[in-house]
C-alpha cells in the first residue's frame, strides 16, 4: 500500500520524462514569460524597433539607389531587429531568472533545462514575429515591393534559434547581472552590424568579409534577400543556418546553469 502511494501520488497526471510533460513544461515556461510581459509587449517591440528602423532610414538616405534596386537594407533591418528583439528579451529574462533567483524556484520543480530553453526560445520567437511583422509593414509603407518566399519563416526561425542559443551561452557565462546586461546587449548588435547584412559580401570592407565567412547572419541575410525576390536559398545557406541554429541551441542549453546558483 505504502509503496503504491509512494510511486503514484506525487507523480501527478502527466508522466515524468514523457514528451507530453516536456512540451507542457516548455509551454508553461513560455506562458510565465508572456503573462508577466503581456501588458508591455508593444513597448518591448517598439524598443527593439528603434535602432533597426533608424539604421533603415539612415542607410536609405545615404544610399537611396540600394533601397530602390535591392532589398539589402530591408534585410539588414530585419536581421538586426530580430537580433535585438530576441537577444534583449531572452537575455534580460534569463539574466533576471538567474540572478533574481526565479530560476531556483523552477529548479525545485520537476522540469528539465531543455524545457526551459525551448520555452525561452518560444518567447524569443514571439518577440521576433511581432518585430518582423512591424518591419515588413513599415517597409511596405515606405514603398518596398517584396515577395515572401515560403522558406522565409524557416530562415528567420533559424536566426531566432541561433540568437537564442548564443544568448543563453552569454547569460550562463555572465558573472553578475550588470555584466550580463551590458555584454548581452552589446555583443549581438556589434556582431550583426559587423557582419555583411546591410550590404552584400562583395561590397563589404575586408574585416566584414572575414567575419562574413563565419557569421551565420551573413548567410541568413543572403538567403532572406533571395526570399524577398521569391527565390530559394542555396544549399550552403540552408546548411550553415541549420548548423548554427543546432550548435548554438545545444550549446546554450548545455551551458544553462541548472544548479549551484
Amino acid at each position, binding site marked *: 500500500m505504502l509503496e503504491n502511494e509512494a510511486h503514484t501520488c506525487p507523480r501527478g497526471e502527466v508522466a515524468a520524462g514523457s514528451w507530453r510533460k516536456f512540451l507542457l513544461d516548455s509551454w508553461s515556461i513560455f506562458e510565465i514569460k508572456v503573462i508577466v510581459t503581456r501588458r508591455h509587449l508593444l513597448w518591448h517591440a517598439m524598443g527593439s524597433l528603434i535602432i533597426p528602423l533608424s539604421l533603415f532610414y539612415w542607410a536609405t538616405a545615404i544610399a537611396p539607389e540600394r533601397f530602390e534596386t535591392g532589398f539589402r537594407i530591408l534585410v539588414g533591418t530585419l536581421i538586426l531587429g530580430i537580433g535585438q528583439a530576441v537577444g534583449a528579451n531572452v537575455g534580460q529574462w534569463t539574466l533576471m531568472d538567474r540572478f533574481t533567483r526565479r530560476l531556483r*524556484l523552477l529548479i*525545485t520543480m520537476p522540469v528539465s533545462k531543455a524545457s526551459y530553453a525551448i520555452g525561452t526560445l518560444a518567447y524569443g520567437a514571439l518577440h521576433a514575429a511581432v518585430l518582423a511583422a512591424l518591419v515588413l509593414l513599415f517597409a511596405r509603407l515606405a514603398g518596398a515591393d517584396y515577395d515572401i518566399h515560403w522558406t522565409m519563416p524557416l530562415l528567420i526561425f533559424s536566426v531566432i534559434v541561433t540568437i537564442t542559443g548564443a544568448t543563453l551561452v552569454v547569460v550562463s557565462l555572465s558573472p553578475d547581472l550588470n555584466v550580463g546586461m551590458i555584454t548581452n546587449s552589446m555583443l549581438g548588435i556589434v556582431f550583426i552590424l559587423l557582419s555583411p547584412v546591410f550590404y552584400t559580401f562583395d561590397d563589404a570592407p575586408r574585416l566584414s568579409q572575414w567575419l562574413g565567412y563565419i557569421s551565420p547572419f551573413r548567410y541568413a541575410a543572403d538567403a532572406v534577400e533571395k526570399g524577398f525576390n521569391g527565390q530559394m536559398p542555396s544549399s550552403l545557406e540552408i546548411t550553415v543556418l541549420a548548423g548554427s541554429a543546432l550548435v548554438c541551441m545545444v550549446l546554450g542549453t548545455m551551458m544553462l546553469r541548472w544548479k549551484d546558483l
Partner: protein
Amino acid sequence: MPPLPLVAKSVSKQYPGGLWANRDISLTIGPSEILGLLGPNGSGKTTFVRQITTETSSTSGRIHVFGIDVATNPTQAKFMMGVVPQDWLALWDCSVYHTLRIFGKLRGLSGRGAAERARQLIDELEMHSFENRVFATVSGGERQRIMLALAWLAQPKLLLLDEPTTGLDPITRLEIWKWIRERKEHGSSVLITTHYMEEAETLCDRIAIMHKGTIKELDTLDGLRSHITGEFKLTYAPDRSDAESTKAVYGASRDKLIKQAQTLGISEFSISKTSLEDVYFSVIGDDGTRKQ
C-alpha cells in the same frame, strides 16, 4: 520493504575554494515523520536542503528520495517532493492564481487539473482576498501561504520546509504549524529547518542538531534529553545579589537533583523539565550565545 521518503548517506558539500558547507551528513526520514534540523546560521542546514532539491550538487555521498537517487535522476526525484525555500522565490509580477496554475502544470498536473488544484488550494489556504494580486504586493504571511501552496500542489509525500515561519507573526506561525501537522496526518513526511526551539519541540518527531556542517545529535526530544543533559534541570542563583546570573545542573530525576542541591548547600532553587533549548546549548557549547 518500501523505500523510505529520504535517505542521506555520508553527504558532504565543499565549495570551490575549499570551504565545507557540510560534511558526512547521514540521516533517514520515515513515513509520516517530521524531522527537524536545528543549528546556528552557517551550520549547513540550507545547503543540505538544497542538495536534496538538486539546487546544489553534493561533493560526496548519496541522497535517495523514495529510492530515487537525486543526483542521477533529479527530475524523477523532484516529482516526489515539495519545497518551501528559505527566501521567497516567486514570480513577483504574476498573480497568485496564475502562479499556482502554471506551477501545477510544472508539477505534472494537466492544464485542467492544475486550474482546479489552484482553486482548491486558494480555498484551503484561504487566499481568496489576494488571489488576483501579484506576489510583489502581498504581505509576508500571504507570501508564505503561497509558498506552502506551491510545495503542496501535487500533494507530495515528502516536504522540505526551510525555515518556513521565520519572520512571521505568531498567528500565522500557529496556522502554519497546524498545516504542517495536517500534512503529516495526510501521510507526508516533512524535513523542516528552524531556529525556533518551540517549533521543533511542538512539531518534530525527531530532531537533528547541526553545528559546523555536521550532525552533532539526532534523536527524539526525550532521547536527546536523556542522553545529553538529563530529563530535569535544577536552576539556582549562586550570588543572591545578582538574581540574573543563574546556574543550572542537569539530572535524570527530581530526587537526584534535590539531593545534589542539598549536597551543594543550595537552599533556593527550581526544578523543571529540560527544554530543547537547554539541550541545544549543551550540544553547541561555547559557540552558543546564551549564558547560564
